[in-house]
């Protein structure tokens, strides 16, 4: 398959079950400058299923708010519209993933958790946005798996047999890696660049045209979550570290210890969350 064909196949995904109709309505509403969180919240809350999913996500431990968030408008105020929109856009993708690939689902949740911890430590303004970028950083893998299943399987197999990273095999077989694929989709879905770039460049954070710091945090969190062995990202190895990106967000040894300990606690709590999802379906 060449790049053009791949692009075409990915373009078609836009019409797949991934985009709930409510998203375009919300986009219109946000363009209106007088819109308030309360008004937006009311529109979302008309969809009860979506609302309960959304509240479950925002209350999960990777965002780590101490009090329970009980309304959508509250969630919008606390997490920002970018985050809420991304959670809505990707909610059906995550549903598919929970059912078909628990390992990748846990890898994504774990990466989001690590992103949040590091973003807070670095006092980034909206740490929830960084968590969200972490949550969907492997969007490309999820989509490959659901839209090009034979190709995906062949990639996983070759990676295992040859002892290669997934993205090396993707590059070889498809001409692009899952980072670029995820970036393409995120752009198609009109997600903000603060999220698009970190997804697209999570393996090459210094190539991001902007938001290099967020990209670097996602890059390192991906490494960290694989390092501790939580979830499964398609191949078992810790990815290489970009040292320029590391200089940007460098943690001291004692900060690193703090991050490891906090991550461990949050991952234990996260298991309650994934268990809850499994039980409730």
């Amino acid at each position, binding site marked *: 398959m060449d790049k053009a064909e791949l692009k075409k196949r990915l373009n078609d995904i836009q019409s797949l079950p991934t985009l709930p109709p409510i998203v375009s309505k919300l986009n219109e509403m946000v363009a209106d400058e007088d819109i308030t969180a309360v008004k937006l919240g009311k529109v979302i809350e008309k969809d009860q299923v979506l609302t309960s999913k959304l509240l479950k996500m925002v209350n999960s431990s990777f965002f780590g708010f101490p009090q*329970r968030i009980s309304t959508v408008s509250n969630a919008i105020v606390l997490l920002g519209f970018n985050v809420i929109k991304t959670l809505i856009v990707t909610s059906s993708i995550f549903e598919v993933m929970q059912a078909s690939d628990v390992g990748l689902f846990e890898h994504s949740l774990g990466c989001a958790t690590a992103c949040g911890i590091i973003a807070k430590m670095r006092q980034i303004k909206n740490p929830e946005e960084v968590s969200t970028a972490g949550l969907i950083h492997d969007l490309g893998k999820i989509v490959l798996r659901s839209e090009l299943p034979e190709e995906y399987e062949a990639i996983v197999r070759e990676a295992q047999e040859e002892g290669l*990273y997934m993205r090396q095999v993707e590059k070889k077989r498809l001409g692009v890696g899952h980072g670029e694929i995820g970036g393409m989709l995120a752009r198609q879905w009109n997600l903000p660049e603060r999220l698009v770039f970190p997804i697209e460049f999570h393996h090459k954070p210094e190539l991001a045209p902007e938001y290099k710091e967020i990209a670097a945090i996602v890059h390192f969190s991906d490494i*960290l979550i*694989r*390092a501790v062995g939580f979830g499964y990202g398609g191949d078992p190895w810790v990815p*290489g*570290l970009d040292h320029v990106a590391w200089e940007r967000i460098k943690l001291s040894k004692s900060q690193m*210890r703090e991050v490891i300990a906090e991550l*461990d*606690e949050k991952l234990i709590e996260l298991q309650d969350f994934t268990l809850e999802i499994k039980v409730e379906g």
Partner: protein
Amino acid sequence: MQRIPIKLAKAEMVLAKDAVTPEGQVLCGAGTKLSEELIARLKKQGVLVLSVKGHPVKEPGEKSLSERLKALDERFSKVKKDPVLRALEHLIGEYWIIEEKGEDFLEKLKASK
């Protein structure tokens, strides 16, 4: 830290997090040392799970510390030459050892090397 169902709680274990009811009511704080009486009282008030310090309960199918350390090392096999990542591997291993065996054990281990 370990999350355990309250029926596995034993006296002398130390809470790593507040003990809360499913409704979110806090009954006693992190750092509290459990006693038989306290466990009975928490059960009565509806507490289902507790977060305790360290890793006192062995779960079925759980990997031993040395197995986990070995798997950790295998995951890092492609990045052994990277000094930052080597340090990261080290810190994770140390954290696991302390969690399971305590700080003293790690010190002794270091001294014996």
